[in-house]
């Protein structure tokens, strides 16, 4: 299961597993997003290519408006997956604080 929450500074918090079975729910949520937002992936254990596709589509939509998502606390396997996807060129990506 993917948990989708909004934190105290309006950051979007994705935790759990972002697999194909959760992509539609995430898509519904992200469609409402306007403005530049931080997405906190600290507790995200897993993301599949469908999950990447949902993030990418949102980023493209926001960049057309001069806005963007910034991914923070990116770590572990999720960090590897985003790296292999070349998302360093698509998002500002920050690892957890040292």
């Amino acid at each position: 299961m993917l948990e989708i929450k909004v934190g105290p500074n309006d950051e979007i918090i994705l935790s759990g597993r972002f697999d194909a079975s959760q992509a539609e729910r995430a898509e519904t949520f992200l469609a409402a997003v306007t403005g530049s937002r931080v997405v906190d992936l600290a507790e995200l254990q897993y993301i599949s290519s469908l999950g990447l596709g949902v993030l990418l589509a949102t980023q493209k939509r926001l960049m057309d408006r001069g806005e963007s998502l910034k991914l923070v606390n990116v770590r572990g396997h999720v960090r590897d997956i985003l790296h292999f996807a070349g998302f360093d060129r698509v998002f500002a990506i920050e690892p957890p604080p040292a």
Partner: protein
Amino acid sequence: MTPERRSFPREVGSLPAVFDFIDEFFDRAAIGGEHRVPVHFAVEELFTNLIKYGGGREEILVELRREPGRLAVSLTDLGGQPFDIRSAPDARVDLGPRERTPGGLGIHILKRMVDGIDYEYVDGRSTTTIFKKLG
């Protein structure tokens, strides 16, 4: 450890059961948790691609084998068309956001998450195997 084999309906809704099947094997075979995400990723990718493009109509067979020094995971589609992911071109991950098109990332990433890939097409059975080094 004897190999484990189970078949699953060709639908996205099967994925939780597929992941459970893998996790149970990991526990019984005492395979390190660090290999879970790469194996889940590869299997989800192969499984959903078979649903989308495979063309078979039977359930999809998943087999898990612990071999010396490595884990082997095979997905077999009966009556589907042959498709060897090793010959799929890499995605253009060097492009910026505006030039990017959705899709095409799955196999590209899969190749970088596993340690080896085999493919076999025999008597209408299309089997992709991924390997993950253990130890």
